[in-house]
């Protein structure tokens, strides 16, 4: 089934939202990963950390609560939830590196069957920089990559990343509009097939060997 980009992103965001557990401290990449918050069920309360020093990121600001001193890591004005706090960049990254974040959800340019991730640099073409991504992925208890399955038709899940890595052997889960994979001991395992896809389509659009085990 052919999905629009918008539909694909909503499917991914909804699926990611089911990974959050009540009380989780989570860090979310800009864009698609952040959209997942909208779909978290009402009985699950998560604490969102933003690398620029906000713990307990709330809704976006509106005309009733503008404050230019409070932004998220994307530079957008946000509010802070009750019980949240502001920290400096050193502390924000100590939280990440020190293993105090339960779950991190990021996008990717490429991710591979060994759990390697590339998301900061296309040599000679596009090098925005790693920002906080390398720190985010190292210390998190669990790393989920949330991304569209392909980019302009080309697979993004590979046997081996070809772009410069963000981190090696750290990705636990990959969530796309077509599938959910887990990576355990350097093995890629297909766990779910989206209702909008099929095993055949996943095989055609995934450039890596994977085990099919839908029982877990």
């Amino acid at each position: 089934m052919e999905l629009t980009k918008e539909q694909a992103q909503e499917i991914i965001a909804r699926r990611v939202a089911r990974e959050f557990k009540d009380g989780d401290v989570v860090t979310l990449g800009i864009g698609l990963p952040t959209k997942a918050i909208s779909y978290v069920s009402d009985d699950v309360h998560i604490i969102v950390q933003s690398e620029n020093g906000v713990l307990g990121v709330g809704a976006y600001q509106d005309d009733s609560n503008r404050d230019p001193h409070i932004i998220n890591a994307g530079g957008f004005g946000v509010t802070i939830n009750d019980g949240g706090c502001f920290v400096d960049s050193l502390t924000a990254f100590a939280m990440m590196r020190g293993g105090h974040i339960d779950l991190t959800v990021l996008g990717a340019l490429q991710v591979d069957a060994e759990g390697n991730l590339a998301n900061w640099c296309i040599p000679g073409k596009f090098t925005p920089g790693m920002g906080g991504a390398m720190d985010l992925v190292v210390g998190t208890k669990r790393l989920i990559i949330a991304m569209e399955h392909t980019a302009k038709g080309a697979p993004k899940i590979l046997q081996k990343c070809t772009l410069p890595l963000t981190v090696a052997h750290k990705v636990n889960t990959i969530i796309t509009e077509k599938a959910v994979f887990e990576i355990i001991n350097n093995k890629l395992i297909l766990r779910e097939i989206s209702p909008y896809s099929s095993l055949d389509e996943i095989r055609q659009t995934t450039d890596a060997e994977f085990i099919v085990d839908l029982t877990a």
Partner: protein
Amino acid sequence: MVKFITAKEATHFFKNGQTVMIGGFLNCGNPQDVITEILKTNLKDFTLIANDTATPEDSRGKLVVAHKIKKAIVSHIGTNQETVRQYNAKEIEVDLQPQGTLAERIRAAGAGLGGILTPVGLNTLVAENKQIITVDNKQYLLETPLKADVAIIYATYADKFGNLAFHGSTKNFNVLMPMAADVVIVEAENISEQPLSPDNIVVPGIFVDYMIKKENNGTD
């Protein structure tokens, strides 16, 4: 002890080719007034240490646009298309650092450490030419201190003793840099005659050399 000066006077503390730290994260917690004055001078060839190069219209981003930055040691340049252009055209040198590593390196300089060992960047381009040290059977990169000649810092609250405090997400690198630079210039939004509460001071005044009352009371 801290001296109160104008943004224009602050330009006297810079020299061509110096290393300059500038606080702020994208559009938040940015010093502006000293940069505005630097843009009126012939000062140039700075090495910039900052989280990012902001946007072309904002704070340190304007220094890039004016070709005053020879080298940028930052974690991200993607929000400033002029930095990206100069980088691709080899008009500026860009040394990209993982953001947490950048913060630790600045802290190491301020805290008199010879460096820190971090797992961040192992098995990536960041590890190139760096010493790998094994502790307890785990590998780490040795990251060395980063210090500056001058730091330009934003603060929300200051007192006449130079003590600083912050509102919202403006702490970012503004809290770290004052310990790591020889000369520290602060632009504060609010300066009080009364001392700030000693329990709530975030940057002690002993790290601050010069204080400017910020003209524009937004963060940019």
